[in-house]
């Protein structure tokens, strides 16, 4: 059976430099990250400026309005301060996920270190901006109002734990979804080739996993968008905490 994990391997293309003893390599992952950046940049910058937009311009404006509305609804109009950050996150994850569905490509977000770094970026932004904007009032985040004094210490402990587990849940959700989806796709796709090698009966039998692979690809397309959206909306909700720390 073909190794379903193989698609997640990093292949060094060239060495960028060294930090201490650690070699910093330009890998296939780096290439796909840059590809995502280039795709987004080309898409955003090549879009026309027509008063009545064409298809391509509509897609660009739709993504703009979509992210802007997501921020406005979950973090208020003040959240628009973070529009470039949230937009970058959404488009980066969305485009890498979509590119990753194309066979023979690499999925940047299937590596936990990438999703964790992005989640940590959001986490640190929330903490730094929260203290910068609210000062010590930011600690109100851990003390919900209207809680009886008896159970307040317990609630505060729970709030603190949930706050600090955010980057983990935030990153693992995206990583696990992309990883599991791609492994499943690969497994079903490898059934097709295995059965196909068994002659006529095998070829007929291979139709089932083939159909499943097609269906799963459709599902993965949805997951690719949905996980990018989930990551984005969670980012907005966390940023909302930094902007309005009182519950």
């Amino acid at each position, binding site marked *: 059976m*073909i190794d379903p*994990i*193989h*698609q*997640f*391997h*990093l*292949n*060094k*293309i060239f060495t*960028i430099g060294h*930090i201490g003893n*650690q*070699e*910093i*390599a*330009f*890998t*296939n*992952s*780096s290439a796909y*990250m*840059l590809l*995502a*950046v280039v795709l*987004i*940049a080309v898409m*955003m*910058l090549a*879009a026309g*400026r027509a*008063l009545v*937009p064409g298809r391509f*311009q509509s897609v660009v*404006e739709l993504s*703009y*309005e979509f992210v802007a509305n997501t921020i406005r609804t979950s973090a208020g109009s003040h959240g628009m301060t973070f*529009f*470039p*950050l949230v*937009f*970058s996150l959404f488009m*980066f994850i969305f485009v890498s996920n979509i590119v990753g569905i194309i*066979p*023979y*490509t*690499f999925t940047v977000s*299937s*590596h*936990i*270190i*990438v999703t964790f*770094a*992005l989640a940590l*970026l959001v986490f640190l932004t929330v903490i730094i901006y929260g203290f910068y904007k609210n000062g010590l009032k930011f600690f109100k985040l851990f003390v919900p109002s209207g809680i009886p004094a008896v159970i307040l210490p317990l609630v505060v402990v729970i709030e603190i734990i949930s706050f600090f587990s955010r980057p983990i849940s935030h990153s693992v959700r995206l*990583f696990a979804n992309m990883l599991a989806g*791609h492994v499943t796709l*690969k497994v079903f*796709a*490898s059934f097709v080739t295995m059965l196909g090698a068994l002659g006529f009966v095998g070829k007929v039998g291979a139709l089932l996993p083939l159909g499943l692979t097609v269906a799963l690809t459709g599902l993965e397309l949805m997951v690719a968008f949905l996980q990018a959206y989930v990551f984005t909306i969670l980012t907005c909700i966390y940023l909302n905490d930094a902007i309005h720390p009182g519950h």
Partner: protein
Amino acid sequence: MAESHGEAKGTASAHTEADGGHGFPPFSKETFPSQIVSLVIAFVALYVIVSRVALPKVGAVIDARQKAIDGDLADAQRLKDESEAAMKAYETELATARARAQAIGAETRDKLAASSDAERKALEDSLAAKLAAAEKSIATTRATAMSNVRGIASDAASAIVQQLTGKAPAAKTVEAAVDASLKGTA
């Protein structure tokens, strides 16, 4: 998805795999620094492009469209207001004109009625005068006729008496008899 990176490895056999090809790639820590550096470079580049160029550009296009729509709506509203104002002015004018026409009509009617009244009155007056004159002349004529009747009657009576008696009666007696008979019949 099958054979995805097997092929990539085949064509680029000089490349060594960063994780040595063993273990679960997403958890092989030796690849983390490379990925983080790549991610930082890529994401910073993306952030700069998005925040400095892409979003302002798309936002400006959307704003311009919103402004154009708002401007068009405002123009439409202004034109509508203008047309309504014109309609109102027309209606006021029409009402004024109608009122004036009515006033002129009433005035004319009053004037005509007054003049016709005056004419009728003059006519009635002249008719009444004529009537009075006629009545007066009738009365005069009648009085004259009556006095003539008395003369004729007394003449006839004295003639009849002369024929019957052969001698003329005294004029005074005849006149008194005629008066008494006229008084009795009249």
